[in-house]
């Protein structure tokens, strides 16, 4: 591995990219676009990264989602997201919105998660003001016509059927239901069928009034966009958005999500494979150890039958699973929320392999907590760094990253900060965080499929002790 000192340097001086492997000089990370953030009087934060080019992504990110719902209106945040494209006073029906967007070659999309709703557009650079106009119009002036609400119920019900047919979606909904039982995070995003069938216009209107307030909106943009101009446009177009009279922190402090070690098993012997998840309580977005846990996630890794590396995969668990033929696939997940999180393994396997697979997964957690070595930590740091930095690809991903980070952290992580924070992690950090979160804990377990051979809860719990290995 010699002779890697000289590397490519981009012809423009600004893009100097030359450094050796041994002494990693992150100078190339300093030549990234600056994030400009402006807070408007009504609390809306406007954040941009100008990278020029021909295309701009503009999005509205809302601190909303199913966590702000109650048992009674569960599903309304998602229902609202569907209804927001259905017409305003100025743009009377869905077709008028769609035609306007397609006439300028733009696109519009949206999603709702447990903590966020997002509405984002991609347009050619001259059309940024039009995009702001459309977004502001649908978010402030949607009519929510009752006839269209009735029509939309069928669409959402068929979306629900689709989700119910996806094993991973079912397992993760079940996992939230058991791990956060009795808490808002335990509910699903779409809501129960009876709610989808009964949500009213008033509930939708009430939810938007209460949650789409200035302090909980972030308008982010990336690409061919000028910050000052965007701020002016947002100021003018989003002028009717009110600041909430309850602060965001106050509002959120009343929502408590308690993690409960527990299990939900749904046995179905008709299915050929078991799909399961084993999870522990993890870290919220703002935790200083966030990247340490991401590193642990990288170390445990993912594997599936299609992976090019096959048995040669570097991850310890991956190699065991591949050589022992334990699974069809497995992945390691880490989901953060504002006050809690979930970390664990998801697996798909033959029914007769499931006990070994669960045991190997939790054994790997204990191995990392007690005796992972410097070599593998350093190797996985490089991998995590590359994976994270490669996410800065294309304006939509950048725009999404800005929106999400400002909502969750209140600021934007620059590539250089990502580099620094990952680079600083030591073996001791990894062992400390793994010991705290993954050792001697009662996990949340859920599974579907032919579960006759699925390990008993106490067996799974017992593997989180070193002395049981």
């Amino acid at each position, binding site marked *: 591995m010699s002779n*890697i000192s*000289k*590397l*490519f340097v*981009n012809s423009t001086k*600004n*893009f100097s*990219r030359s*450094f*050796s*492997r041994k002494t990693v000089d992150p100078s*190339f*990370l*300093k*030549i*990234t*676009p*600056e994030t400009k953030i402006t807070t408007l009087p009504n609390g809306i934060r406007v954040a941009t990264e100008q*990278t*020029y*080019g*021909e*295309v701009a992504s503009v999005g509205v990110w809302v601190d909303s989602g199913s966590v702000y719902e109650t048992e009674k209106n569960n599903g309304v945040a998602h229902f609202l997201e569907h209804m927001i*494209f259905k017409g305003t006073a100025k743009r009377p029906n869905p077709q008028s*919105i*769609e035609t306007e967007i*397609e*006439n*300028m*070659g*733009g*696109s*519009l*999309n949206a999603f709702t998660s447990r903590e966020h709703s997002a509405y984002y*557009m*991609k*347009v*050619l650079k001259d059309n940024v003001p039009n995009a702001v106009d459309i977004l502001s119009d649908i978010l402030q002036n949607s009519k929510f016509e009752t006839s269209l609400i009735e029509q939309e119920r069928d669409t959402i019900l068929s979306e629900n059927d689709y989700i119910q047919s996806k094993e991973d979606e079912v397992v993760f909904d079940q996992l939230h239901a058991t791990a956060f039982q009795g808490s808002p995070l335990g509910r699903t995003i779409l809501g129960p069928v009876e709610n989808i069938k009964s949500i009213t216009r008033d509930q939708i209107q009430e939810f938007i009034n209460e949650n789409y307030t200035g302090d909980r909106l972030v308008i982010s943009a990336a*690409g061919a966009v000028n910050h000052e101009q965007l701020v002016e446009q947002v100021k003018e177009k989003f002028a009717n958005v009110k600041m909430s009279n309850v602060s965001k922190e106050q509002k959120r402090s009343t929502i408590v999500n308690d993690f409960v070690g527990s299990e939900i098993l749904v046995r179905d012997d008709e299915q050929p494979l078991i799909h399961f998840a084993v999870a522990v309580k993890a870290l919220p977005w*703002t935790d200083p150890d966030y990247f340490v846990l991401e590193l642990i996630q990288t170390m445990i890794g993912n594997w599936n039958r299609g992976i*090019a*590396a096959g048995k*040669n995969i*570097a991850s310890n668990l991956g190699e065991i699973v591949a050589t022992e033929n334990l699974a069809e696939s497995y992945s390691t997940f880490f989901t953060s929320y504002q006050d809690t999180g979930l970390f664990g393994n998801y697996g798909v396997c033959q029914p007769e392999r499931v006990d070994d697979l669960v045991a190997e997964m939790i054994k790997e957690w204990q191995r990392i907590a007690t005796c992972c070595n410097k070599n593998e930590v350093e*190797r996985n740091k*490089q*991998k*995590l*760094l*590359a994976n994270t*930095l*490669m996410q800065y*690809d*294309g304006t*939509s991903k950048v725009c999404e990253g800005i929106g999400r980070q400002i909502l969750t952290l209140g600021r934007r992580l*620059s590539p*250089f*900060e990502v580099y*620094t*924070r990952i680079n600083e992690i030591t073996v001791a950090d990894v062992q400390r965080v793994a010991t705290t979160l993954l050792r001697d804990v009662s996990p949340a377990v859920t599974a579907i499929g032919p579960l006759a051979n699925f390990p008993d809860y106490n067996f799974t719990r017992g593997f989180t002790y070193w002395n049981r290995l």
Partner: protein
Amino acid sequence: MIGRFIARNYTTSVFQETKRVVESTILPSGLKVVSLVGGYTGPAVSLGLYIKTGSRNETQETAGLNQVLKGLAFESNTNKLGLEVQREIESSGSTAFVQASRDNLLISTQTLPNYSLQMLKNLANITKPTLPFHEVRDVTELVNQESDAYNHDLYSSIFESVHQTAFRGKTLGRPLVAPICNLGNITHESVINWVNATYKPSNMILVGVGLSHNELIEEAEKVSFGNDSSSVSNSTETAQYIGGESLKYSTGNTQVVVAFEGTAQSNVKDVAAFSVLQSILGNGSPKVAPGHGRTSRLFSLTKNNSNIVKSEAFNLTYGDSGLFGVVAEVEGATVGKTVSLITSEIVAASKTAGQELERAKAIAKSNILEQAEHRSCALEFIGKQALHADTVLTPSEFAEEISKVTSEDIKRVAKKMTSKKPTLVVVGDVSDAPTIESVQSQLKL
């Protein structure tokens, strides 16, 4: 601890606009190096290698060999064992994938700049495989499973039929998915012979996105790609579009494809016109988001005909030919009705003008520009042009070509494509499939 992070200075240097340009050089070895430089590609870079070998060059005896080559890409080479190749890519956090097409093999990678030289060497190494017997044997076994999966994939088998019918089993009509029945005939020796004949620098294109072109050619000259000395070469027969029909009985919903000869990649004007025609016809999937065809002809066609589940226009370009058409999924014995609906949309689309044309142009333009924002898509965008044409356009330059498309151009390409015999593929309830003559008679432009 968090406070410590905030207090630190993470500010960035002044970031300036740089225009994206394509630079291209042919090295003394014959290797073509093409770079897309300028613009913002994020903190990572892309590096890829195209090798001009594909299923179109195969023969009856070697059918499926290129899919075996695909599987062998990250196996042992003269410098490293397969294990080392795979581990090195993984532990540097880089990503690499290999894709076998009808006329090329692409190895596309993404990496942080500090590993770009190593990745360049990896790519060079990949072109010098040692091909030990056991690796070829094991990969052939994997290809067997892969083909089995492809054969069960509806879309992949439909497009196999479309190509086979359109080019009547020759050149672009050869099977892309390795035929399982022939895998046993692909010998270790035939793989070695194939590699010797095709892995030559003059048969390859190295593509960089986000790297300095001068540095790239300087470093690329220091490593050797493939087998320079080989005098054997595989001939490439020119693709000839013929057209025709293929009917296959199956249960469930029926898949229908009406296709025509499209355009070769080298004809930029026609590529632009066809991409606008594709936007005019658009996408008739009920779940399509605003911006991806909700105002298109096929969207309203699908919405207004309950027997049509979904429909979409496609536009495939190759070095010397192409395929343009519509694929639809229908319920019941409604193929005849659906085909006439599709042909009348094509006839109507050929007369598009005014706002509808401008909208289709805007959508086609932003599709290209949006895709090209992503490093690996940008790599394929310029790589594909470099494979088949002498001039390579940047995404913005190609968007300009789309702006120049007129209603006359649309009429011209539509007329040209419908003047030849169409290709009709039906899988499902074939009982009311129209004859190819009746389809052709519906297409008088």
